[in-house]
């Protein structure tokens, strides 16, 4: 029954090659990618702005971004329940403004899960990006501007390559974190939108299937490590390529 017997390979194959597991795995990957994209979209402007502002503004933003890290993920997810629930802040605001006829379902969807995970892991994207931005000298940007590059061109050719290392660090923390997060997807995604770690818990708590649980744990670990190795490799290639 316990999984470290010799037939683990067949248990692993049986657990992984079925429709349920594949759909859960794909959902986990999809959520991770969406969260990583959203975090990049928000973190780049924020880090760019904070990186070149006055020390006072800088320390204000730094503290504000770090505060959530100290608060229990459970509390933060509960905060999202208050915002996204049927009677929550968002729904009551939208109905009061007559933008909605009746409350819509946001909680217990993939979107809610993505918002929660975005808020959970955003600082880990912001911290390395900010330190990369702080190392970016103003002269480089001015040189690009005086040579005629617009903001978009400057970003693609100057800012992005010079902050790529920090970006990749943030990306790997977010992707690995989303693959392994448990509380946030449980509270915000609900049973229908299970992720890998919820499936792992379900195998132990409800289905009492230790072999399948071990196979799931192994696949979480393989996912996390391969994402990390792949991104580290990509980072090295990109840095060398310049």
């Amino acid at each position, binding site marked *: 029954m*316990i*999984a470290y017997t010799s037939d683990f390979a067949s248990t692993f194959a049986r657990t992984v090659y079925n429709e349920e597991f594949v759909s859960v795995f794909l959902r986990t990957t999809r959520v991770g990618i969406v969260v990583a994209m959203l975090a990049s979209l928000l973190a780049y*402007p*924020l880090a760019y*702005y*904070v990186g070149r502002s006055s020390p006072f503004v800088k320390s204000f*933003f*730094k*503290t*504000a*971004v*770090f*505060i*959530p*890290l*100290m*608060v*229990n*993920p*459970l*509390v*933060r*997810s*509960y*905060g*999202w*329940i*208050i*915002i996204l*629930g049927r*009677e*929550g*802040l968002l729904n*009551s*605001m939208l109905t009061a403004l007559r933008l909605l006829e009746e409350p819509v379902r946001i909680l217990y969807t993939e979107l809610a899960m993505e918002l929660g995970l*975005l808020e959970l892991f*955003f*600082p*880990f994207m912001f*911290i390395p990006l900010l330190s990369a931005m702080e190392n970016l000298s103003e002269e480089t940007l001015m040189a690009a501007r005086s040579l005629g590059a617009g*903001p978009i061109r400057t970003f693609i050719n100057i800012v992005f390559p010079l902050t790529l290392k920090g970006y990749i660090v943030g990306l790997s923390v977010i992707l*690995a974190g989303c*693959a*392994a997060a*448990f*509380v946030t997807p449980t*509270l915000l995604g609900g049973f229908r939108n299970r992720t890998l*770690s919820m499936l*792992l*818990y379900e195998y*132990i708590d409800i289905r009492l299937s*230790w072999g399948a*649980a*071990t196979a799931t*744990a192994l696949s*979480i*670990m393989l996912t*996390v*490590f391969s994402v*990390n190795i792949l991104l580290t490799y990509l980072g090295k290639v990109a840095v060398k390529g310049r």
Partner: protein
Amino acid sequence: MKSFFCVLSLLTLALLLSPIVMPLLISFSTFESISFPPQGFTLRWFANVFNYESFMNGFLASSSIALVSSFSAIALSLPSSYVLYRHKALKMKGLMESLFTLPMLMPEIVLSYMLLLFVCRALGVVSLLSLIVGHMLVVMPFGMRVIYASLSNLGVDIEDASVSLGRDRLGAFLEVVLPNIKHGFVGGFLTCFMVSFNAVSISLFLSYGEAVPLPIAMLNYLQIRYDPTIAALSAMLVVFTVGLSAVVEKTVGFVSGVR
């Protein structure tokens, strides 16, 4: 352009901070369930928290587990950081440095499951001890990082100077090195404490009948109902943890404490 970035940054900040502010807003409301806008003013939900035994026991359990596990994590990090810091020419130093912080990359849920499988099930150990050891394993890389960073910042010269002036090794360590890294101790300890206090999956997998840490008590409560009692508790936890983090900020600064 500048003001556009400013507005965007403030919006991002609002997105990040709103889930933390929400419990504070709702916890004084007289409504039985979550609803907006919050109305009236009552301290009933706060009283509820104090009257609900699981929360009180959970708080005690969580803080004692966090205290013991952080203390042992720091006690174990000190000798290993000291070796890494003293011996510049240590073989495979880089490898050892990364081995000590690598467990941070290990998903907490996988670590919890492995402990459950190999310690609790295979060895039959289900006790407070396994819960504490689990927490210690989760927090140790954080403690190690802070202690090692403060030792490296100190440098070996000051210790060598006191030895060359006639102090023996142990005396130099106790009277020169330790007092100089006391901020690292406080910061590392508080970081570990907070990580352990906030850890959910390790407690979920390893907790048993008598010792139910606070996050698990909250999860259990949330499965029954969503009334503002949880909001009141969350509000108190926000104040508690943000207060603690202010202490960390004062002692070591956030960046070294977090990553």
